[in-house]
């Protein structure tokens, strides 16, 4: 498939620290439905990578199967991509990360891909605390197979098919907090102001970062009876607060009232400053995060923003004590013990 986008770029386009323009982070044209929430998330990813001056070719983008999993083709054209099979992106990402710890990994998945067929892999990916950003484009339905309910569809919510979903919903954020994820956030594809900083914070976090983005399916699940529709989410979302992502080099200039602000230092020296709407909510505490999510759920609200952050965790490489050099750069001399050693090994088999 060839991009129809014009190659010409205006010379006056803003450039980031790498001298790249936003268009350097774009991908092919989307083939999703007009108005699909996923395209907004794609744009958010492009914007976040651009603003953070990430080298596009040092990113690997991975996905499973579904509408959401198509989107890696629509951003970061200079990155290697891997559109794997349904629900298996977490294992592919784990292997890729083990091979080269120096790249950034962005995984894109959907609610079917993550909460149903791939829930086993998702759960264990979180447990391993793999250093990656895992974005769920969550629309509560199976788009590519024409609108069946997914496991994140709320009980009682009805899609275009008209029958309300009789089963309990899986809350991926709550589950991730319980499983020990170090960064958990929820966004809304219709709220770019919140989504881009969320993605940036997730990218700066070392370890597993989940960004669950409610991303309405305009074709099958945008009805008045659906809790994953644009209108419903807009009316019921409640932000945990606003926040600033302050990169390492930047001086902290803004000042907020004492007590309502919580600062979290990230691994690379950047700082996240949270300005909370509710003072009793401590995002660094698992229990507090789960309580906040549950409290909002009971009130029929959707809690968005950064829900949990813990910068003290070790990632998979730290846990299994791999060497500092990426494994895929080790030479034969560094890997092969040689014949003399082999013969010594055989002495123990005599």
């Amino acid at each position, binding site marked *: *498939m*060839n991009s129809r986008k014009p190659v010409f770029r205006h010379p006056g386009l803003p450039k980031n620290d790498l001298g790249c323009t936003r268009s350097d982070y774009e991908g092919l044209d989307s083939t999703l439905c007009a108005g699909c929430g996923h395209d907004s998330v794609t744009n958010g990813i492009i914007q976040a990578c651009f603003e953070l001056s990430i*080298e596009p*070719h*040092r990113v*690997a983008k*991975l996905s499973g199967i579904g509408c959401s999993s198509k989107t890696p*083709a629509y951003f970061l*054209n*200079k*990155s*290697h*991509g*891997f*559109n*794997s*099979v349904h629900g*298996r992106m*977490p*294992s*592919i*990402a*784990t*292997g*890729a*990360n*083990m*091979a*080269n710890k*120096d*790249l950034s990994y962005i995984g894109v998945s959907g609610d079917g891909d993550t909460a149903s067929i791939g829930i*086993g*892999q998702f*759960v*264990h990916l979180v447990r*391993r605390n793999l250093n990656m950003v895992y974005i769920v484009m969550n629309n509560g339905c199976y788009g590519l197979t024409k609108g069946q309910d997914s496991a994140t569809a709320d009980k009682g919510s009805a899609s275009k098919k008209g029958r309300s979903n009789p089963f309990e919903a899986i809350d991926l954020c709550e589950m991730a907090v319980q499983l020990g994820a170090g960064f958990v956030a929820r966004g809304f594809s219709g709220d770019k102001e919140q989504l881009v900083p969320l993605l940036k914070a997730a990218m700066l976090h070392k370890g597993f970062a989940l960004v669950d983005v409610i991303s309405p399916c305009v074709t099958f699940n945008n009805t008045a009876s659906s809790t994953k529709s644009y209108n419903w989410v807009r009316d019921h979302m409640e932000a945990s607060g606003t926040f600033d992502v302050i990169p390492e080099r930047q001086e902290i200039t803004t000042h907020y009232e004492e007590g309502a602000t919580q600062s979290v230092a990230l691994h690379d020296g950047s700082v996240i400053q949270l300005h909370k709407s509710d003072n009793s909510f401590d995002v660094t505490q698992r229990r507090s995060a789960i309580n906040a999510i549950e409290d909002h759920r009971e009130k029929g609200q959707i809690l968005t923003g950064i829900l949990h952050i813990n910068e003290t965790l070790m990632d*998979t*490489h730290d846990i*299994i*004590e*791999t*060497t*500092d*050099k990426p*494994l*895929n750069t*080790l030479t*034969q001399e*560094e*890997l*092969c*013990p*040689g*014949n003399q*050693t*082999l013969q010594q*090994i*055989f002495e123990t*088999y*005599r």
Partner: protein
Amino acid sequence: MKKLTSVNDFVIRFANVNGSGSASANNLFAKVVFRLGVPVSPKNIFPSNIQGLPTWYEVRVSEQGYLGRRGGYDFIVAINGQTLEKDYDDLLPGGYFLYDSTRTLSEHFNRNDITLIGIPLTDICNREIENPKLRPMLKNILYVGAIAFLLDMDFSVLTDSITKQFSKKPKLAAPNIRCLELGFDYASTHFKDVCNLSVKRSNKLDSHILMDGNSATALGAVYSGATVVGWYPITPSTSVIEAFDKFTRQYRLDESGKRKSAIIQSEDELSALGIALGASWNGARSFTATSGPGVSLMSELLGLAYFAEIPVVLVNVQRAGPSTGMPTRTQQSDILACAYASHGDTKHVLLFPCSPTECFEMSADSFDLAETLQTPVILMSDLDLGMNDHVCLPMEWDDDRQYRRGKVLDREQLDNLTQDWGRYLDIDGDGICYRTYPGTHPSKGAFFTRGSSHDPYAGYTEDNDTYKRCMQRLLKKWQTAKGLVPGPHIKTHDKTSTIGLIFYGTSAQATYEAVEMLDKKGLALDTMRLRGFPFQNEVSDFIDQHEKIFVIEQNRDGQMRTLLMNELNFVPDKLTSITHIDGTPIDARYICQSIEALLEKTLPHKGGAA
């Protein structure tokens, strides 16, 4: 009664309860025979259970060097009450039956064609060993001591072996040696000149080693530079990964003690292969090891690897299926499941090692092969090869050997490209295209890997012709593979022989022995041991050159026969199956008898009207 009489040529079977430490005692016996320079072949026939079920350990001692299973038992050590009667019945006439005489045998143990050797093992243990916890384990050492006397073995090799075994815990050596002596003394007092079987020091094994196939496979992976492993525990493949872990902890640490390998125990086999694939896609050599049930789960990702052309090594240590089957028994029953694993048109490269030596070599080669061909390579081991110890020659690693990483473009090559590059563009005409690793170049060489239909530039396509061309190119690659996978080992015994035997993997040793047995009876047979799939022309030539072909294998349906017929277009009549499916390793006497029976059946037709 004629007692079985021989020096260095017999089969002894130990019948125990599992979880009682018997395997290590029985292994001690086998090791001592090995250290006396006598070819030996131990087979652990154990249950899928941790404690309390019957387990057997067979040791074949063969001065002539026959290392396959022979069939029949000359000496049985019956320690398990649950199987006492069956063990008693299984003994060959003239054989020896050693049992724990603390309990007397009931009346119906009334064979008069065997020699009974009753030793009150439990009594002696209760009397001599103070710590009751140690008694069950030391009871096993006690009978090893008794056997040492009965078989006239050099006792010092036994005590030396114990000392070596407990070199790090010398306190434990003393009670073990004492029990050896107790057993030895009891037998010498009560059973002098009773046993006509013996083990005499020989010089047949000067430089040999005694090694299990799984350790050899793991070593091959270490030597060929595998760094990433995804795996899920499953018998009988678990020890491949455990050995890889052990060797890399010893020989693959950096200066600060950090590991130059990443081993991830995953949540299931889907994930295990996914991890290996992700790593390989990203430029690290990686593998996974599993058995039949794991292969079923991995089929999904094997299809992805085939279609997206991602190299990966899969070690399949086969066990008895279908389904859970007999998890601790051996079989060669995943041939078709692996050759054509996954939906759609798929074919996979298979390798068939027959010894630890080949486990090492083929394991090391499989990484070169997978990366050269950019496709999965499946190493088809089995439980017998993987988990049992085998006498073999130590392998050599050529220090001048260079890893063959296949067609991968680095940054400089991408910069210097003078022609069009597409991930799936076949420039060389061998069906193998050039790949790039993520992160190589700021603006060149990025592509989108997918399991969906793709054009030469890795773009999504539903264009009929483009799809078709991609599938045809994969067939061209398959042709290229024929020149790279190891060819068969053919032994033309006699130019006039019209009968050929085909076999592979662990059927080799027993088949070669059967061929010698039949040769002595005047039947000359040619043999072809298959070592890889796809099959080369030599394979079809061998079949063409013989009137009758027997395909010997350890599964019910003659899976290799099916594969040969399907891939080489032979008519079913040409190939006759000899199958061994009970979950124990195939034995020479069985093969011999099967061939004789089949020939008798077919002989009357010879020369008759067509």
